């Protein structure tokens, strides 16, 4: 079974702190994603990486950066956390065969106070 793990299920940080959210997948997938999910807004794409060291901005990249130094690991960085970044963060990796299928991690609920 594909496994996507995220470093924390729950995280509480203070405004202005630098926050790292880590995601690891064990299926050698080239594509990885970071989303945030807020009530009534569905899943919104923050960043997408289609290969090591490659990244593309999603719909809401402002206030975030990412790092993909190794194929299995995709990190989301909040340079200076703000209260409007309180959200559920979901990481995913994607297979290309036999289906174009995304596998999601359990999510990290981040609260910024």
């Amino acid at each position, binding site marked *: 079974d594909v496994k*996507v793990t995220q470093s924390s299920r729950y995280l509480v940080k203070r405004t202005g702190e630098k926050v790292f959210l880590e995601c690891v997948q064990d299926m050698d997938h*080239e*594509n990885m*994603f970071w*989303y945030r999910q807020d009530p*009534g*807004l*569905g*899943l*919104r*794409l923050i960043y*997408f990486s*289609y290969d090591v060291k490659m990244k*593309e901005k*999603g*719909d809401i990249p402002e206030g975030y950066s990412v790092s993909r130094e190794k194929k299995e690991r995709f990190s989301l960085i909040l340079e200076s956390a703000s209260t409007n970044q309180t959200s559920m963060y*979901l990481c*995913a990796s*994607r297979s*290309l065969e036999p*289906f*174009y*299928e*995304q*596998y*999601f*991690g*359990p*999510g990290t609920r981040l609260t910024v106070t």
Partner: protein
Amino acid sequence: LAKTTQPISMDSYEGQEVNITCSHNNIATNDYITWYQQFPSQGPRFIIQGYKTKVTNEVASLFIPADRKSSTLSLPRVSLSDTAVYYCLVGDNQTGRRALTFGSGTRLQVQP
């Protein structure tokens, strides 16, 4: 990327068949249609994917008309555990260099 439109919410009762329709009027030739299911406090999971006509697996069926401008996810005899949000995604499966949009999905509530 093709824009999708689906109902915000639906209600059903246990044992009924549920059909959720997604509109994607500007679907492109290379686009596939994919449906995901999300339970509370979990990430979405893949249900089914198709290109045209009908696809069936152990969970659901996907009906796609000839013009491919819409698709219908069919859940046979739903149970309480089918209460979830269902997302319709449309996009190109030819390369791994594009991200698809999830949107807000359809919230299905199954009642006893």
